[in-house]
């Protein structure tokens, strides 16, 4: 067995303008690997939401994308404030985003629900004051394995 392919990104916390760059890069990389468009769409949208969350809520973090033969795993890790009530945060429309963030079109409270919707598995580990790690997995369609 060869090692799975891995991509690592540092996501800057202070830059709204470039937020989403890692996700757009991943989309391009997956395209070059001829992954099917629906899988690419799901992975990149889920990753974008997670990336934006790290920028808005956690002052940045890291993103790792790991390509297994049967699935793509996305791990987003930050050392931000953490999420006190994860099930509340998961509700559509729930957001603690500030007005300056909202005026940019973020803070709809749809990020985590979108991430859940677009992936097959999602796990949130979060500790207040320590940080948050979100792990998501998208299974590849049978034909692509």
């Amino acid at each position, binding site marked *: 067995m060869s090692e799975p392919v891995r991509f690592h990104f540092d996501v800057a916390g202070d830059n*709204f*303008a*470039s*937020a*989403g*760059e890692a*996700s*757009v890069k991943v*989309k391009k990389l997956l395209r070059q690997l001829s992954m099917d*468009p629906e899988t690419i*769409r799901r992975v*990149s*949208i889920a990753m*974008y*939401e997670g990336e*934006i969350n790290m920028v808005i809520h956690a002052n940045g973090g890291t993103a790792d994308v790991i390509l297994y033969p049967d699935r793509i795993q996305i791990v987003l890790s930050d050392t931000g404030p953490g999420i006190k009530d994860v099930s509340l945060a998961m509700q559509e429309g729930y957001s603690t985003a500030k007005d300056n963030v909202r005026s*940019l*079109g*973020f803070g*709809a*409270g*749809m*990020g985590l*629900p*979108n991430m859940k*919707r*677009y992936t097959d598995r999602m796990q949130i580990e979060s500790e207040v004051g320590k940080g948050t790690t979100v792990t998501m997995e998208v299974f590849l369609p049978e034909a692509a394995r």
Partner: protein
Amino acid sequence: MTAKQLRERLELQLLSEPDPDRDVTGGYAGDLLSWVMGRAQSGDAWVTIMTNRNIVAVAALADPACVIVAEDSVVEPDVIALACEKGINLYRSSRTSFDLCCSIGSLLGV
């Protein structure tokens, strides 16, 4: 209908058109980026009043056929350049989102 044809029919201002032959298959209106990201379909004409750089990332990921900025909302040159670089058709109009959507709907026969 292609993005270029849609632009011509609606007399939209051309900001960036790296993919003129992209097929437009539907439409979506929205300004909340996560909402758009989750709901817009690949091939939609996306109508919005948002013009910050993040619309390019959202378009690159959600894959609409074009982005139409309504009500002559100001688009900075760096956003136009970025759209061009990322292969995003970007247009602009003085009309409202509602107005544009009505026209897109009747052009597409939806």
